[in-house]
C-alpha cells in the first residue's frame, strides 16, 4: 500500500496540470507519530507534500459536503461509499469530483498501539505487513493485521465502489469476518444490563462532538444538539443529555453509516461509539438487505418506501 503514493501523485499532477480539478484532497505527513493531516493541494508544485500510509484513517468525504470547486479526492473503500452517500443526498455532484480510488488494506489503530507499548512511542516505521515501533528503551515489530482499526479488521468493502482512477489493482475482499459479534453481545443483555452498559460506555464523554464532526454523515446546517430556538438538549455533563446526543446521532446515521470508523478514531476519550451505529447497520442489513453507499441507483431504506417493507405497520 505504501507504493500507492507515486500513482496518487502522478494522477494528482495530471489532474491539476490539465485543469480537470481545482484542488486535490489528500493527506500530508503528520507532525506526530501515526497521524497524517487531511490537506488540499492546488498546484502541481505542492503535489509532493501528499503522503500515503496506514495513518490515513480519516474519512476524506467529510471535506466534500457543500463545496463548489471541482475536486480530486483520494478515496479508500469507505470514503468512496460516503462519496456515494453524499451524491445521493445532494451534498456534492458526481461530475464535480474526480475520485482517485485506493484499494485499502486497512488503517492502523494508533490508540491501541500506544496502549500496547511500554512507554511513549517516538518512532514508527511501516512496511507493507509490519509496523515497527520504537521508544526509550524498547523496540518491537507488530504484525499490521493485528493492529488495524477495529472497523478495518472486519471491513468487507476495501476497494472503492466508485472511482475515476484506481491507483493499483484491486485487493482481495475479506469474506470470513464476523462483523457483528459485539452487537450480538449487547443484544443479548437484559434492558437493565444494557442501560448499565451504555451508562458505562459513555461515562467519559466530554461532549467535544469529535465523533459527530469527524463523520461525513453529520453535515446538518444546525445539529439538533446545537438548536437554540428552542433548545432541545441540555448542555451540561448530565448523563441523560449525553445519552440523548449519542442515541439520536446514531439514529440519524441509520442506513447511511458505512462503518468507516471516523467517529471512534476521533474520540479523545477512546469511547467505542461505533457500537451504536453498528447495531443500526446490522438492522438495515437484516431487514432491508442494505449496505450503505454501494450504489448510486437505489435510495437508502430510510428515505424511501417499498411495498415489501418487512414491518406491517407501514404497509
Amino acid at each position, binding site marked *: 500500500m505504501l507504493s500507492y503514493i507515486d500513482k496518487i501523485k502522478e494522477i494528482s499532477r495530471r489532474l491539476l496540470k490539465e485543469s480537470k480539478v481545482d484542488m486535490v484532497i489528500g493527506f500530508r505527513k*503528520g*507532525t*506526530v507519530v501515526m*497521524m*497524517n*493531516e*487531511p*490537506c*488540499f493541494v492546488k498546484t502541481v508544485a505542492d503535489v509532493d507534500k501528499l503522503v500515503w500510509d496506514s495513518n490515513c484513517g*480519516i474519512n476524506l468525504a*467529510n*471535506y466534500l459536503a457543500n463545496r463548489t470547486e471541482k475536486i480530486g479526492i483520494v478515496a479508500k473503500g469507505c470514503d468512496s461509499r460516503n462519496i456515494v452517500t453524499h451524491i445521493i443526498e445532494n451534498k456534492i455532484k458526481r461530475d464535480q469530483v474526480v475520485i482517485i480510488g485506493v484499494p485499502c488494506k486497512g488503517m492502523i489503530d494508533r*490508540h491501541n498501539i500506544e*496502549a500496547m507499548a511500554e*512507554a*511513549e512511542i*517516538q518512532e514508527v516505521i511501516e512496511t507493507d505487513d509490519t509496523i515497527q515501533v520504537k521508544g*526509550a528503551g524498547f523496540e518491537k515489530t507488530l504484525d499490521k493485521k493485528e493492529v488495524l482499526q477495529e472497523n478495518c479488521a472486519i471491513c468487507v468493502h476495501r476497494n472503492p465502489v466508485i472511482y475515476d482512477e484506481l491507483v493499483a489493482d484491486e485487493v482481495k475482499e475479506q469474506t470470513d469476518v464476523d462483523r457483528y459479534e459485539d452487537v450480538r453481545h449487547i443484544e443479548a443483555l437484559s434492558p437493565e444490563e444494557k442501560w448499565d452498559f451504555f451508562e458505562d460506555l459513555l461515562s*467519559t464523554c*466530554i*461532549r*467535544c*462532538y*469529535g465523533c*459527530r*464532526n*469527524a463523520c461525513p454523515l453529520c453535515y446538518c446546517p*444546525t445539529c439538533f444538539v*446545537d438548536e*437554540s430556538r428552542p433548545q432541545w438538549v*441540555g*448542555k*451540561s*455533563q*448530565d448523563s441523560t443529555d449525553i445519552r440523548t446526543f449519542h442515541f439520536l446521532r446514531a439514529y440519524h446515521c441509520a442506513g447511511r453509516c458505512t462503518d468507516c470508523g471516523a467517529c471512534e*478514531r*476521533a*474520540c*479523545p*476519550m*477512546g469511547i467505542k461509539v461505533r457500537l451504536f451505529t453498528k447495531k443500526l447497520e446490522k438492522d438495515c442489513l437484516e431487514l432491508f438487505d442494505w449496505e450503505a453507499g454501494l450504489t448510486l441507483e437505489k435510495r437508502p431504506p430510510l428515505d424511501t418506501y417499498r411495498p415489501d417493507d418487512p414491518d406491517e405497520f407501514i404497509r
Partner: protein
Amino acid sequence: MKVIKIDKKEWAKGLERLSKTYQLFGPAKHEAFFVFKALEDGELPDLDVQNTRLSPRSVIYPQSEKMFEYTLDEDQEDHHILKEIDKEYSSRAIIGIRPCDAKAFLLVKRNFDAPEYKDPYWIKSYEATTLVGHGCNAPCSCCFCTTAGCGPFHEEGLDILLVDVDDTYLAKIITEKGDRLLAAAGWDTKTDTATNDPIENMKEAAEAKITSMVSTDQLKDKSTTDLFEASFWEDVSFACINCGTCTYVCPTCWCFDIQDETHGLSGIRMRNWDSCMYPLFTFHGSGHNPRDTKTQRVRQRFMHKLKYYVDKYDNGIQCVGCGRCVRFCPVNIDIRRVCDLMNSFEL
C-alpha cells in the same frame, strides 16, 4: 526555600493524615489512560503517569457547575428570584499535578481574578486548593513547555514541588500553603538535611530531554490585522472538524456558557465549559453569527492564545506547552506549527 525528604515508606501514612483535613485529588488510571479524580479512602495518587488525558482544570473549574436555583411557582414568596446554591470550598489538594498544569492555573487566573472582574466560584475554589507538583523526569515528545514559559520542574503556580529520588521524595516548599499542607501530613520535616542540588541536576536533565520548541519572540510586534488577514488560515484550518477536543483538553482554556435549565416549576442556572470551535459560541440572538465559518473559528483560537492574550497581558502566550491538543487533535492540527507560522509571518 526549604527542601525536605519524605521517605516513600511514610508517603501513604502522611496522605492518610492529610485526607482528614483535605479532600485529595490525584492521577489515576482509567482503562487506557490517566485522569485526575477525587481519591477514595486509602487510594494513592498514581505518580507513574507521564501525563493525564485531561488536565486537572475541572478540579477547580468543573465542566458543569450549578450557580443558582429558582422557582417559577407564584405561590412561593421568592418566585422568580435567583438564589445562590451553597457550595463547598473546604481545603483540597491536587497531589501529583504536573508543573505545566499548575502554571496553567496562573494564566487562567488573569481572566477569573482580574482587577475589574472577580469570578467568585473560581477564586474560592482556587484559594481552597493546594497544588503539590510532581517534577517531570520523562517529558513526552510533544511537550514544548520550555519554550512556552514553563518547564518540567517549573515552580510558578505550585505550592510544593515533589521530586522522585530513589526511595524518597524531595519536597521543595514553595509557598505558605505548601507549608501548611506538609504540617497537616505530618511527615518528618525536621530532617532538613536534603539540599536543592539533586533537584537542580534533575531539572537540567529533564529540560534537556525536551526537543520540541516554539518561537514566540516576534508575536508581540506583529500587526494584529496583518496576522488576522494572513493567507495561511485557509491551509491551517482545512483539516479542522470544529470539534471541541483542543479546547477541552487544554489546561488554559477558560470559556463558558451560562444556561438555565427548568424542570416543571423549578430550575437552576449553571455554567458549562464552552468552546470557540462551536458555531453556537458566537451565535447572536438576532440570528447573525459573526464567526460563521470554520476558518474564522480556527483563527480565533490561535489568535486568542498567541496574539490577543500576548498583547493584553504582556506575559507570554496563553499556552504552557503541555502538548495535549497536539496529541489528541483528531486531524493533527498542531499549535507548534501554527505558532511558528504566526511568529515568522511577513506580509
